[in-house]
């Protein structure tokens, strides 16, 4: 039985038995290389659920503050968000039925579009290959080569928390150095110029923030009018201030799912800033967000030997 069928079977069972009110999963998108979040409330609607390498959205974004009982389809990274949200009391463990999917990586559609330089009219997976087609042409890609950078080096491709698993666990990847490890070796000036040029593109649509399961503040600091923390002008400086604020607020909380980068219409490499923060938290506090349901988040725990390099005089 394929993963899609397995998800449908689990979801239909949950809905039929009244164990959940809704199953949040993926349905077919309206464009090639796209899927779309699907809220299934009936057994019939559960029949429309799918799983493939376009299921990139982190559906945990729909969890905070829910009052109903919910089944949710999660990849490895998404499951970490569920764990973190439970830690942060945004959803109760008993409220969620986690349908875990071992994930072989999500296709970076922008990378594929850039490679073909033409409009893609259809796409499908054939084994280890991705086939894309346009008007009178078709091209094959090695699926592995067109995955998101974060997926190629993902070490948590199996869900860390689940009530049912749709598929066999996959071997963890060891994809070599991450983009952050490569990037942080560059000279400071080069990194600064790169970040500012990325930030200059930002249109402050806040897709990054809104796609992030951890960005659930009732009022984001950028939306506060009294006091106004952030200017309304869209320029590299203000944009950078927004992103720095967001990254710092996600310290020890970011689950590195890449939802922010994927949502960004301007293709800004947000994963670099967050990845660097995650790396610092791991090196300083030995913590990765959402990996262990039993372990408190880095900012919720104090150990006498925590590094305090930020204190004056140290």
């Amino acid at each position: 039985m394929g993963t899609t069928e397995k998800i449908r079977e689990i979801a239909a069972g949950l809905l039929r038995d009244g164990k959940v009110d809704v199953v949040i999963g993926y349905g077919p998108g309206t464009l090639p290389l796209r899927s779309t979040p699907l809220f299934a409330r009936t057994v019939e609607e559960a029949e429309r659920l799918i799983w493939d390498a376009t299921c990139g959205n982190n559906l945990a974004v729909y969890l905070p503050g829910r009052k109903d009982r919910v089944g949710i389809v999660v990849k490895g990274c998404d499951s970490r968000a569920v764990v973190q949200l439970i830690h942060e009391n945004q959803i109760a463990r008993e409220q969620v039925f986690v349908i875990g999917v071992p994930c072989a990586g999500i296709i970076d559609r922008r990378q594929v579009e850039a490679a073909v330089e033409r409009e893609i009219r259809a796409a499908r997976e054939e084994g280890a290959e991705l086939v894309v087609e346009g008007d009178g042409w078709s091209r094959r890609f090695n699926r592995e080569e067109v995955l998101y950078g974060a997926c190629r080096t993902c070490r948590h491709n199996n869900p860390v928390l689940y009530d049912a698993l749709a598929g066999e666990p996959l071997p963890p990847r060891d994809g070599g150095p991450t983009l952050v490890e490569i990037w942080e070796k560059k000279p400071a000036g080069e990194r600064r110029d790169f970040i500012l040029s990325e930030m200059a593109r930002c249109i402050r649509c806040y897709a990054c923030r809104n796609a992030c399961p951890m960005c659930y503040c009732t009022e984001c600091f950028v939306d506060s009018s009294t006091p106004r923390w952030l200017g309304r002008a869209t320029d590299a400086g203000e944009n950078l201030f927004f992103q720095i604020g967001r990254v710092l607020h996600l310290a020890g909380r970011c689950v590195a799912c890449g939802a922010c980068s994927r949502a960004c219409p301007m293709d800004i490499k947000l994963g670099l800033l967050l990845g660097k923060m995650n790396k610092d938290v791991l090196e300083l506090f030995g913590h990765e967000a959402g990996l262990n349901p039993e372990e408190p988040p880095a900012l919720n725990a104090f150990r006498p030997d925590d590094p305090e390099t930020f204190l004056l005089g140290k």
Partner: protein
Amino acid sequence: MIIRKERVNDFLNGLRAGYRLYAPVQTQAGPVFAPVNGATGWSWPAGNTLKSAKEVFLPQTETLFTYRTSLDGVQVEEARVEGRVVLLGVRPCDARSLTMLDKVFAGEGVRDPYYTARRENTVVLGLACNEPCGTCFCTSLGGSPFGTAGCDLLWVDLGDRYLVRVLTDRGKALVEGRPEFAPAGDADLAAARELEEGALGRMGTVPVQGVKEKLDRLFADPLWDRVYEKCLGCGTCTYLCPTCHCFDLTDEVIDGLGVRLRTWDACMYPLFTLHASGHNPRPTQKERFRQRIMHKFKYFVDNFRETACVGCGRCIRYCPVNIDIRAVLAEISAG
């Protein structure tokens, strides 16, 4: 008229004496309109630009005036709109959107001086779509891949040359008497007609007939409970949309030096309708999503007898959760 492609460079260089040129410049994420020097550093995009042409007339961030407050009072200095511009390579959907923005910013009664000055100073050089994209649906909304609304000139790519349609006096002033142009022959016109028919044949259709009348009575319909549900509440659709035009006004003051800014705003954001009392008439994403649809397909029609959507497809292409306005319209039609 006809201009051969190898002569376009001469034409553009000739324009530089009297105009600043804006054209689609490639960025990491896609092409956007930006200042260019002549024919290099940019290209006609295959499909549409990532951001629409509206930002040339209604910039995302715009200084309206600056002021200085002191014990002597307030001195105000108005920001000036720069000189003449030629905007190169605007697709017919984007050009048509300008005629809709005109109704808001340069219509009867209200004339926004900044927007109006830019419109009057700018020549819109349109580029017909020989190959519409899969997300294009302009013909369903009264537009056309070869439409001329909002254009001063419309160029049609005939392979080694462009057919140039002169549509306004402003457009005529740009090309009249220029040595790079020659009269078009019957073969040129026939070639353009064939391309136009080909483009029209590729267009998808979206059921928009009767949507306005449906929306007149759908405000409280349970339909909205479903269609908004996956919306993240970001502003991608509105900010990339050529007809969305809502803005915010803020004063940013440091040490008595003030700037009044006009910046894009979006009905997708909670702050957009938050009252000073703390009350928000659109408290959840459901009401905000409904507002976006209602504004385009009902309120704008009520106000200006026109639908505020040109079918460019940007919201479909760039929505992070693949909310497809064509599907929403189909659901409204069926509702």
